[in-house]
Structures are given as C-alpha cells and as structure tokens.
C-alpha cells in the first residue's frame, strides 16, 4: 500500500495539547476515525472524535488467560497496549454477505453484494498489528486471486501507528523481529511521551496529514532518547519463540508426547485463531428463504479448532483436539513459511491472553522443539 518510493522527512515533535489538530486534519480529508476505546472491560476499535475519547488514565494488565484494565494518574493516550482486536476485523470482516441468489423457474441469478466502505483512519496501531496486516496482505492480495472485499477495505485505511515503549508479559514481538518499533506499513507513526509525540510520516498520505499539524523539528537527542525507550521495551520482553530451525523441529515433533499434554488442557474453543491477526480461515454459509426463491451466500470466520473444519466428504481428518492443536501450531510456525514465505506469528501475544485456559504458544513451541526423552 505504502510501498512506492517515499522519502520520509525527519521526525517532528507534536505537542499533546495540539493533538486535536490531527483529528481535524483527518476529518478534513474525509476520514472517519477509529481508535482504542474502553469497551466491555478491554479496548476495541470505535469511532472517536476527540482525544478525550481515548482511554486516558488506563493501563492493561495481561497474563495468560487474563486481561484487566487498571486506572492510574497518567495522561497518556495510548498507554493500553492492545485489546482482543487486531486490525483483522477491519479488513477481513467476521461476516460478509457476498451474493444473493434469486431463483427464476429453472435457473437462478446471482447479485453481488457491494459493501459500503468509508475511508477510515485508525489511531493507535501497534507494530505487531502492522506486521499481521502485512501477512494478511500476502494472503488476501495475492496475484492469482486477490480478494475484492479485503482489497477495498485495505485501500480505504490510513494507519497511525504508535511505537511501544512498554510491553505486556505476553508480548514477544522482539523475538519475531516485528516490533516494538513500527517498521513499515504505516502512514503516520507516533512515539508518545508525557507532553508530546515524536511524529513521522511513512507515506505520502501520511505526510499530507502531517503538513497540517503544528510541529517542530525533533532534536537528535530526543530521537535517540525515544529509540532507547523502544529498545528498552524490546529488552523487557521475557517470552520468545525459538525461531532457529523451529519449522524442522516442529515437523519432527509430529509424534511428540507434548501434543497429548496440551490437548488435555485445550478446549478446542477457537478463541486463539479468532484473535490472531494472521489467521484467515473462513467458511461460507448458505441461508435460503423458506420458499426457496432466494438464498444468501455469506462468508464467516472459521477456525481449525471448529468441529467440521477438518471434514471432507465422509471423513473428519482432524477429529481430536490433539490433531487440531498440532494443525494450528505447525501451520502457524512452520508450514506457513513454506506457504507464504513468512511465519504466521507476529508475537502479539493475543492467543496467550485470550485463551480461556491460558495456553502459551511460546511455551508449547519451546517444549515441542526439545527432544521428547
């Protein structure tokens, strides 16, 4: 999206008290603005119209199987690291009606449903979210069968990233080289400090917005300082995936006893795949009208943990939880690389936090890459 040769100007300093200007600039360019908003005990992407809508004074505490919001006296806008939603629901929607079929005597006609898509600016996107989106781009925007629904939504996005200067215990982007600094795919990128933001443009679109803002040139000292804060965030991460030779290790681990141990805990509930920014499985539902004159053809999120995902006429190839967990982990961390040239994991930690029983992908991968005896 933002790949055409673009020379980013050096970072500027943007005062917190001027932040409303960013809203005005985006609005003027016709964008609706989404940002992290306190919702149902977490944050979710919702429409925002002013900085006050952001979760000021709140932090998130994440652990395997647990997410809690906590209040303190800080005044930062983007202190909550992330919620269950990556960018995925904004581009690959959980439910999309594709066609309506109409019966006429002995034939039928199909009407394509065109979704209504508005230009959308998203504020507070994390490096891992951008990395996840880049992976979904490879899947949905491949040369052979680009997905028109994804494509339209994707083209209408303007992404304002925020570099992470702190991580929660489930994060392991540093070991996946996807964060905590946003490296690509953003239009604007912020590094938040108490009084101001370091702001940089990552695309022409972003620069166009940046030019509307009252900014000053950031000092070399400040730029280095922020780099160090981001590096400290990377260093604070305790989880990591064993990345060297992991695919081979996992292929060899096909009969590892660890699969049985994790299957005894796993609920096969699909939460991990639903929150994962890169999982793309979907199914298609057909909903006929009672008189059978019309039918709606709808795409919905599916999961390799769902009961019928491995069902092919007459046989379920993955009947047990062990089969399914092995499928998920081996695809995500090994065969994904063969398929798409990249790991399917960006280290966002969502599958760890949002697993109802707190299964930890890094711990499982670690155990599986050790010999069984």
């Amino acid at each position, binding site marked *: 999206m933002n790949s055409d040769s673009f020379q980013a100007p050096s970072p500027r300093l943007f005062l917190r008290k001027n932040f409303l200007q960013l809203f005005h600039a985006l609005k003027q360019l016709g964008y609706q603005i989404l940002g992290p908003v306190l*919702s*149902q*005990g*977490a944050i*979710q992407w919702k429409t925002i119209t002013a900085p006050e809508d952001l979760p000021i004074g709140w932090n998130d505490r994440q652990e395997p*199987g*647990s*997410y*809690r919001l906590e209040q303190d006296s800080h005044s930062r806008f983007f202190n909550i690291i992330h*919620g*269950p*939603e990556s960018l995925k*629901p904004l581009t690959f929607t*959980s*439910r999309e009606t594709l066609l309506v079929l109409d019966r006429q005597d002995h034939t039928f006609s199909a009407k394509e449903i065109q979704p209504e898509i508005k230009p959308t600016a998203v504020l507070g996107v994390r490096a891992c979210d951008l990395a996840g989106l880049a992976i979904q781009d490879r899947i949905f925007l491949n040369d052979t069968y680009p997905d028109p629904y994804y494509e339209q939504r994707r083209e209408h996005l303007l992404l304002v990233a925020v570099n992470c200067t702190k991580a929660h215990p489930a994060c392991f982007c540093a070991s996946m080289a996807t964060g905590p600094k946003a490296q690509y795919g953003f239009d604007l990128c912020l590094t938040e400090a108490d009084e101001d933001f370091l702001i940089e443009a990552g695309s022409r679109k972003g620069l166009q917005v940046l030019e509307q803002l009252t900014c000053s040139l950031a000092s070399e000292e400040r730029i280095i300082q922020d780099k160090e804060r981001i590096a400290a965030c990377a260093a604070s991460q305790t989880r990591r995936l064993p990345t060297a030779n992991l695919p081979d290790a996992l292929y060899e681990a096909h009969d590892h006893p660890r699969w049985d141990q994790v299957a*005894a*805990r*796993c*609920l*096969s*509930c*699909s*939460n991990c795949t*639903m*929150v994962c920014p890169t999982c793309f499985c979907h199914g298609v539902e057909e*909903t*006929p*009208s*009672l*008189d*059978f*004159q019309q039918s709606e053809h709808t795409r*919905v*999120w*599916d*999961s390799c943990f*769902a*009961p*019928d995902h491995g*069902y092919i006429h007459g046989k*379920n190839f993955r*009947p*047990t*939880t062990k089969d399914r967990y092995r499928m998920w982990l081996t695809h995500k961390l090994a065969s994904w690389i063969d398929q798409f040239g990249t790991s399917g994991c960006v280290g966002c930690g969502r599958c760890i*936090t*949002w697993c*109802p*029983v*707190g299964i930890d992908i890094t711990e499982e991968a670690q155990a599986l890459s050790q010999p069984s005896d």
Partner: protein
Amino acid sequence: MVETQFSPYRKQPRVAVVKFASCDGCQLSILNLEDDLLALGAAIDIAYFPEASSNMQEGPYDIAFVEGSITCPEDLPRILELRQQTTTLITIGACATSGGIQALRNWSDIEAFKQAVYPNPEYIQSLSTSTAISEHVSVDYELWGCPIDKRQLLRVLTDLLQGVSPRIPTHNVCIDCKRQGHVCVIVSQGLPCLGPVTRTGCGAICPSMGRDCYGCFGPAEHVSVQPPGVPPNMTSLAQQFHQHLQLIPVEMVRRFRGINGSVQSFSKESDAWESK
C-alpha cells in the same frame, strides 16, 4: 407451498407441535416467527398445535415438534404413540432434548418434595426422574436451547421442505461471540462462562450482555459428523474455573448442573465435583 423437484412432500406436510413437561417457551418461539408466519402457514399444514389453534387433528404427521420432558406416567404411552404417528420427530428445547431444568430432580428425592409442597401428595402422579425424549423413542433431529432459537427452527423446516437433511451447526458459543466482537468475559472479568463447551444457537446472547453463558444450548460437539458427537473438554474448563476463577466445589457442581445438567457430558463433570 412452493414445489421444487427436490421436495419430498407432494402436498403441504402435516405438522404437529406437541407438549410434555415444559414452560411453553419454545412453542412461543414458533409463534414469535412473526415475519415468517404467513409464509410458514402457506408452506405447511399445521394439523395439531393446541397452543396456537383449537383445531386439533389426529395423526399421522409428517413432522412433529416435541417440547418438554417425560415426567409423568401418562407421558410414556403418549410419546410412543406420537412416534408411531410421525415420520420426522424433532425435539425442541432443553426439556425435550436433555430433560431440562426439571431434571434437577434426578439428583433428589421426589417423595420428599411431594410431602413438602402438596397438602395431598397422594394425588400427585409423578415419575422420580425427568428424562429426554430420546431416552424413550428415536429422535430425528434435536434443537437445543432454553428457549430454542427461532432461526434454527425455521432453517430446519426450510431444509425439510426442500428435501435437504437439516444440518444443525454444533460449534461452540465462543465462535459466535468472537465473530460478533464481544470481549471474552472469562478473560476480562473472570466469569465462569460455559461458552467454550456450549453449542451455538443463541447468537452469544449472554456474553453480548457481559454475562457468562450457562450452557442453555447444551454441550457443543467436538466432532459432529458422526452422531453422537464427542463432547468438548469440560474437565479442563472446570479446572480453570476452580484454580483461576476460584470457584469452590459446590459452585462447580451448580455451574455444570444447570438447564442441561442431565446430559452426560455435563453430569459427569458435576458429579465429579460433588464427590470432591
């Protein structure tokens, strides 16, 4: 009725809606199909539905929807007779499908209840258990829920009218919950949600209100293609409730012994916690 080359019915199928021990809520779900009632009336012949019409015709029936569980001696001949009169028998709701909330009596002393509640307990003719229809006769399709989901009912009828075997989805509530963008109440609030092990159907109503699912659509099936399905991992979820959400054993028993407490995968779990 619209005829297609596939429909197994040459004329409108004769449909009965029959009640056993129940609250009538599932029958009301049929009447709540407001938008589709006219089309439904055109597609089927409602031969027996006392809740809706005093015109009650005798069998045989092409399709019977059965609400309620077997709780009284006279229920037994009635259900056998209905089965004989019916081509496709479909249970509707938790009571008919698993025994319902009244199956809590299966763990207690019915005689003691009678003595405590009624001035003349000798008039009460009641079986000591409440049981699912499938424990007495063969059942063709089961619609779970307390009450059922009217869209599921409509879908089953639509499929039958077209000669398609109804495929009632068996995945869990979590998938619907996440598709709809609700934040998980186990993870964000520490509530003992049964969504991971409960069957789809309601559209994740409880989590959408910030509440924990209590399993009213029965157990999700882990493998659904060959009935009876394999139940999901109740034990691991129970461990999580106990160890991380600090539910004590008596709360664990209540959690798994609810509206569908009699269905085996739930009762196994509640019985296990009762002995702890």
